[in-house]
C-alpha cells in the first residue's frame, strides 16, 4: 500500500464536505498505516507534531482584544469614517491596504496586521461601508464578496511582499535547501528575485480591486 492513500482520503473527504478535522485525522492515520507504522506509532507521531505546533493556535489569545474593540464600537466608527470621505472607495481602500501589507511585510513586519487583528475589526467593515455607499441597495451576497476580497487582499499582500525581507522563514528555507545541495547563496540574492513578483502582484490585484469598484458603481440604479 502506498502512503499516497492519505492524500486520496484528504481529497475525497474535502469533496464530500465531511468535517475537515475528521478528514485530516483520517488522512494522517491512513498515511501512517500505509507507510507501515503501527497504530501506537501513528498516534505518537500525530501527538508529537500537534504538541510542537501549539504556537499556531496560541495566537488566538488576541480574541479578547478584538471582542473588546468590537464592543467599544470600532466597526461602527470605521464605517462612519469611510462614509465621510467620498473619495475612499472599496477598491482604493483595499489598494492602500495591499500596499501597506506588501511594504511592511517586505520589512519583515508580517504579524502587525492579519485576519483577526485588522481585517475583521477594521478593514472589512470599512470596505463594506464604502461598498454600501457606492450602491445603497447592495445585496448581502455582494457584501460577502467584498469581505472575501478584503481577506484575499491581506493574503496577497503578505505572500508577495514577505520574500523581499532577507530574514523571513521562506528565504531562510530556500537558502538552507540550496545549501544541502552544496550551493551557497546570500539571502540578498534571493530577495532581489522576489521583487518582480511583488510588483506584478500589486498590479494584478489592484486592477481587480478597481474592477470591483467599477462593478459596484455600474449596477447603481438611477
Amino acid at each position, binding site marked *: 500500500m502506498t*502512503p499516497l492513500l492519505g492524500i486520496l482520503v484528504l481529497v475525497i473527504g474535502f469533496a464530500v464536505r465531511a468535517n475537515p478535522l475528521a478528514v485530516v485525522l483520517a488522512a494522517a492515520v491512513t498515511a501512517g498505516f500505509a507507510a507501515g507504522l503501527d497504530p501506537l506509532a501513528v498516534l505518537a507521531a500525530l501527538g508529537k507534531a500537534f504538541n510542537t505546533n501549539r*504556537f499556531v493556535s*496560541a495566537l488566538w*489569545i488576541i480574541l479578547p482584544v478584538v471582542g*473588546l474593540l468590537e464592543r467599544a464600537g470600532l466597526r461602527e466608527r470605521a464605517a462612519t469614517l469611510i462614509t465621510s470621505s467620498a473619495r475612499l472607495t472599496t477598491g482604493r481602500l483595499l489598494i492602500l491596504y495591499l500596499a501597506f501589507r506588501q511594504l511592511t511585510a517586505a520589512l519583515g513586519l508580517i504579524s502587525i496586521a492579519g485576519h483577526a487583528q485588522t481585517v475583521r475589526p477594521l478593514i472589512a467593515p470599512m470596505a463594506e461601508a464604502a461598498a454600501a455607499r457606492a450602491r445603497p441597495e447592495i445585496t448581502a451576497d455582494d457584501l460577502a464578496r467584498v*469581505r472575501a476580497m478584503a481577506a484575499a487582499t491581506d493574503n496577497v499582500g503578505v505572500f*508577495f511582499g514577505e520574500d523581499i525581507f532577507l530574514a523571513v522563514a521562506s528565504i531562510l528555507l530556500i537558502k538552507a*535547501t540550496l545549501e544541502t545541495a552544496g550551493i551557497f547563496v546570500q539571502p540578498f*540574492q534571493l530577495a532581489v528575485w522576489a521583487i518582480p513578483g511583488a510588483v506584478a502582484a500589486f498590479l494584478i*490585484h489592484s486592477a481587480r480591486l478597481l474592477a470591483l469598484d467599477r462593478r459596484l458603481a455600474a449596477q447603481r440604479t438611477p
Partner: protein
Amino acid sequence: MIGLPALYTLAGLLFAAWAAITLLDKSHPGRLGTALFWSLIALSFLAGDHLGDVANGALVVALVSLVTLGFPRRGTSPETPLSDRQSSAKTLGNRLFAFALIVPATALAGTLIFPHIPIIDPKQVTLISLALGVLIAAALLLRTLRLAPVVAVSEGKRLVDGIGWALLLPQLLASLGSVFALAGIGDIIGHSVASAIPQGQHLPAVLAYTLGMAGFTIIMGNAFAAFPVMFAAVGLPILITGLGASPVVIGAVGMLAGFSGTLLSPMAANYNIVPAVLLNLDRSAVIRAQTITAIPMFIFNTLIIWMYAFPSP
C-alpha cells in the same frame, strides 16, 4: 527566559477560563461537551510537554471525536446591542483607532527592541511581543470602558464560539504535514513528477517544477512543505544540473510559484478558512476571491523562470 512556555501558559489559562464560563452558563446548549473541548485545549497548552507523545495523540483523537459529535456549540449570550456600540463609537471617536493600533505597534516595537533584551527568547520575539500587545491593549480597553477583566474573557468567548472547531484546523493541518513527511509522501510525488518530464527541453521542465510546486502546495496547504521536495526532485537534478539554470532564480521564484498554490488551497486553513469563518463567509469564499489573482501570478512566475533562469544561448 521568557519564551514559548510563557505564551502557552497565557493561552492555556484563557482556554481554561472559556471552559469555566461555558460550564457556569446553565443556558448553554451542549454545556458539558463544549466545556470539555475547551478544557482539552487548555490541557494541551498547560501540560502538553509533560503528557508524552501517545497521550498527546490521544488528546487529538478526543478533540476530533468531540467535533464529530457536534461540539463545541455556540453559547446563547447576545452581542452588545448595535445602539450601545454606536453610542460608544461616538464617545470614543478616533481614539478607537489608537486602541486598535496597540497590538500592531507593540509587535513592531517588540520585534525591534526585544532581540536586545537578554531575558527574552530571541527566536520567539514576534510571538512574545504580540502577547504583550494583547495584555496592554486589553488592560487599557478595560480601564477606558470601565469593565471588569472577566468581560475581556467573555468577549473573546463570543468570538471563539463563532469560530468553533475551525480554531483547531491550522494546528492539526500542520501536524498532518509532519505525519505525511514521516510517511515519505514528498519523495513519492517528487519522483513521479520528475519521471514525467521529456529530457532536455526548457519549458516542460520549468512547468513540471512550477506546477509541481503549486500542486503539492495545494495538497499540503504550505509551500514550505512542497519546496524541499520539488527542489530535490526537479529543481536540482533537471533544471540546475541538467539545463544549467540559475539556482538563485529556481529557489526564489519557485517558492513564489508555491505561494500561488497556497492562495488556492483549502488546506491552508490559517489564510483561507479561518478568515472565511471570522467574516461569516462560505468556507470557499476567500479561495474564490483569490483565484483570479493566483492564476496570473502563477503564469508570471513560471515565465520569469523560463525567460531569466537559463544562460543566454
